[in-house]
């Protein structure tokens, strides 16, 4: 039954892609067919994921599909895989619905058959990738995913920025794959098999140095795809370049496949390692989270801003994973479970709200034809539903209660606090809370960023004519966003449902169920009883909180209405007596300026002011201000490396200088060397 469902998922995607491609002559039909199949598959995938997570079964299928030696299991869907299938399916469910309306704008401008094909292939690759039972299939679908997403990134390839973004993306991701491949090869060499199951049998007994090598390789490899700093450079380029529904998928779920791979190798195969792995991952996570959100604040392109937030959120996920790795290293499965649940829950949450926000950005682009926040404003009145959903996404990503982002960040905080109080080592006791403080700063900066993002785009007056003419987007797009908005709230007030689903996953990975310690219906309740010296416990009750908040607002509204006198009058905003114009509004740049100045040592801002004077130097005619943030990592890491590479390549070209005598000389020397060497 589950196997059939799985093949249904893959089959629908394959057919959807092929049909969409073959119908490219009729764009509208191609669009409908392509996204309908994707939608159907997403429904099936959701059901599949939930069934497996509820039953806790592991399903195998497709033995002997690949004829290469060392591979017996083509697909293996265990709870971990099922959880990621669920994440992918939930997001693709909403995004596919969204796409019905969104992709209409491409009719007549681009080939929709290709969009449908690549979109379905992309989803197919992601589902198959997490369901892969062996390393070959994993890499195969991993690369297919990269390829399909590359195709989608360069979908609008007439723009040179898009092409550049696509190239950086494919190169970075391919180099990342190299590291993953090397890790798998080492495992293969040790286990004599590409099957994850076999690898797992050998992986735990490997010598420590070997394990560390593999760990570092997968960290770099998957880190590139996940976009951790400093391997993130492709991410803020590629996400804005792609169509918004694709950005939603890329950011929402594609990055998560890297997290999946990391968990698969580090936990399932290697069974964790020494505690310093965890500290390493935790530090990486903290750096990514902090720098990610700081860079995000500096962006005025809404999709770039969201892309940097993916870096941030991946960092938060890694912090959870890092804490879990530390506990795993100390042999504390219950605590490792806490970190894992925090990370996995954040995986789900980030998928939901980030996809929601990218769809929101797509909707805005659909309505205003721009991604530049400085040209927007006042959209909430023109696009009330989009605005509302975007607000939900913003609150969720800013980790504010009672939405889902809060709960997973709360769990991450808790695992860091446990790190602070568990009798492991003094160093960790201090590091835990310090990382907690870093996470707090991240969360606070994220809130700043989304006040900016929502406030500048949706509030006050429109800053440009195209923003003033914006209209609400078609219903399908709203439904797509609405589904995710509801899920954001739902998981925020009923986090136990996610904890329930994660139970078999943690049971499988660390041998300790999540429900066991985080049970309870309305509130989360991490009781960590397993350590002799530690009785750490705490509770939150998001549902009660939500009810009180909702009723509180209503109640206060009634009470104030009853207490108060005097009516309500609509008038213009007070502006020191002058008339208000949109030019006086705070812009995205000015909003972020305090942060830019405070963190100038990190962000290295550049500032260009061009002033044009009329009548001497006291009367300014016009003033142009430009503030950009220096692309630090590109400047110190990537560009020099690229230059050296190109320079060396250029020098090497002299080998082929065109002289036949030189060429004959090569032959000559080769022969002489071989003759001498043969002795």
């Amino acid at each position, binding site marked *: 039954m589950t196997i059939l469902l799985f093949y249904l998922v893959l089959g629908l995607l394959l057919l959807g892609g092929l049909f969409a491609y073959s119908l490219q002559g009729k764009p509208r039909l191609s669009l409908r067919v392509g996204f309908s199949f994707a939608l159907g598959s997403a429904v099936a995938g959701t059901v599949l994921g939930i069934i497996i997570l509820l039953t806790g079964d592991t399903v195998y299928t497709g033995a002997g599909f690949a004829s290469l030696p060392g591979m017996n299991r083509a697909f293996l869907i265990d709870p971990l895989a099922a959880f990621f299938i669920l994440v992918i399916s939930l997001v693709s469910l909403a995004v596919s619905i969204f796409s019905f309306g969104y992709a209409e704008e491409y009719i007549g401008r681009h080939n929709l058959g290709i969009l449908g094909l690549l979109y379905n292939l992309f989803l197919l690759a992601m589902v198959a990738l997490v369901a892969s039972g062996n390393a070959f299939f994993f890499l195969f679908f991993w690369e297919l995913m990269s390829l399909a997403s590359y195709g989608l990134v360069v979908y609008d390839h007439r723009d040179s920025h898009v092409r550049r973004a696509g190239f950086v993306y494919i190169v970075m991701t391919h180099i990342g794959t190299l590291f993953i491949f090397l890790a798998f090869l080492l495992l293969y060499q040790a286990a004599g098999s590409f099957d994850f199951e076999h690898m797992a049998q050998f992986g735990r007994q490997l010598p420590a140095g070997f394990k560390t090598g593999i760990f570092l390789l997968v960290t770099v490899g998957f880190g590139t795809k996940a976009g951790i700093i400093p391997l993130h450079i492709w991410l803020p380029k590629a996400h804005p370049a792609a169509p918004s529904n694709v950005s939603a998928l890329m950011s929402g779920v594609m990055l998560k496949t890297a997290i999946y791979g990391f968990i698969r190798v580090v936990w399932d195969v290697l069974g964790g390692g020494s505690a310093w792995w965890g500290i390493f991952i935790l530090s990486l996570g903290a750096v990514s989270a902090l720098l990610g959100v700081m860079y995000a604040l500096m962006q005025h392109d809404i999709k770039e801003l969201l892309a940097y937030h993916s870096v941030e959120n991946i960092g938060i996920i890694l912090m959870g994973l890092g804490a879990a790795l530390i506990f795993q290293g100390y042999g504390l499965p219950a605590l490792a479970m806490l970190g894992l649940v925090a990370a996995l829950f954040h995986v789900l949450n980030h998928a939901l709200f980030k996809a929601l926000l990218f769809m929101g950005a797509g909707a805005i682009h659909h309505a205003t034809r721009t991604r530049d926040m400085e040209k927007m404003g006042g959209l909430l009145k023109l696009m009330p539903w989009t605005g509302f959903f975007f607000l939900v996404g913003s609150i969720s990503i800013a980790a504010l209660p009672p939405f889902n982002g809060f709960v997973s960040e709360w769990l991450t905080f808790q695992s860091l606090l446990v790190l602070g109080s568990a009798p492991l080592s003094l160093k960790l006791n201090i590091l835990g809370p310090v990382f907690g403080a870093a996470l707090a700063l991240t969360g606070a900066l994220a*809130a700043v960023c989304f006040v900016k993002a929502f406030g500048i785009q949706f*509030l006050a007056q429109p800053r440009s004519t195209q923003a003033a003419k914006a209209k609400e987007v078609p219903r399908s797009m709203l439904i797509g966003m609405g589904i995710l908005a509801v899920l954001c709230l739902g998981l925020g007030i009923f986090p136990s449902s996610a904890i329930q689903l994660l139970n078999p996953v943690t049971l499988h990975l660390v041998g300790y169920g999540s429900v066991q310690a985080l049970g309870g219906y309305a509130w989360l309740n991490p009781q960590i009883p397993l350590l002799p010296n530690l009785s750490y416990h705490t509770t939150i009750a998001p549902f009660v909180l939500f009810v009180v908040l909702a009723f509180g607002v209503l109640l206060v509204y009634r009470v104030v209405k009853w207490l108060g006198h005097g009516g309500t009058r609509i008038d213009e905003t007070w502006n020191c007596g002058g008339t208000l114009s949109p030019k006086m509004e705070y812009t995205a740049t000015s909003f972020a300026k305090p942060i830019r100045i405070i963190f100038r040592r990190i962000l290295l801002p550049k500032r260009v002011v061009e002033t044009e004077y009329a009548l001497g130097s006291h009367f300014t005619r016009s003033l142009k201000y430009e503030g950009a943030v220096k692309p630090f990592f590109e400047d110190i890491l990537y560009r020099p490396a690229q230059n050296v590479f190109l320079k060396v390549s250029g020098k090497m070209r002299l080998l082929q200088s065109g002289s036949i005598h030189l060429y004959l000389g090569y032959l000559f020397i080769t022969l002489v060397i071989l003759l001498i060497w043969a002795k």
Partner: protein
Amino acid sequence: MLAVGLTILQMLFVLGFAPLLSGIIKKTKAFFQSRRGPSLLQPYRDLYKYLQKETVLSEHTSWIFRITPYVYFVAILIVALTLPILTTFGMLSFTGDLFIVIYLFALARFFLALAGLDAGSAFGGMASSREMAVSAIAEPALMLPLFTMAIAAGTSNLSGIVEQVAQGGWPALTSAHLMTFVALFVVGIAETGRIPIDNPDTHLELTMIHEGMLLEYSGKQLALLTLAVHIKQLLIFALLANLFFPWGIASPAAGFQVSTLLIATLAFAAKAVGLGMVMAVIEISMAKMRLFKIPDLLMGSFLLGLLGLISHVLLRG
């Protein structure tokens, strides 16, 4: 049933006492500045006046602007319900821990900052921008001391922390404890919007942070927000007072008599007034800082908090 009663009591106390506390601080400042100052009841009169006035809404604003006072007020009120002020046995204290408290403040601030942007005037935007920036960099400095307390208590639940410190008695007052307190106190200044970080009494564009966001509000909405700001101040004081010096607080261990509750109320009021007076003294003896000096101050507070943490970890015995 008892819990419900205690909760209602605590809420009434907060609602009633918060404006008075503001009044006391104003009066203290006036005393040191050799002025007579406004009456202690002036905050109540202001609130009453606002409630009677007509509400003027800007034509540029959206529903965000209208809903914000309610969200802000209710978020603060929920904190008042979860925080152990008079008693550690609140009805809703299970709903949240220190994170809920901090993040409810953040939620309130989030909406207020949006409302600041909503009217479209430069003042609101500037205030939003500054408020968010300052509070963001205050966040780690705020959290780290709380973490230290939570680790020491083995729970991030505030009632739990308070009870733990209360039961610890005077020996709980280690150097770590005190350093942590001072660190949190500095952040408390930032959170309550007082000199040297913000000036609550000004509407001058160059100096204001928090007030700028309220600039466009009037009538009932202003009343609600003003009251909420009073309450928030009280809650911050409660956090400072009860987390570090919880003595006198009514706890289920001692049983609930009218006398214990009375003692708890008086003890808390005394502690709050004391803190308020200290803040007032600081306010009149310092000038407001330049905006971009604030990070240095908060950094210092963060380092102090870190010192407290290290000292706690190393010396906990």
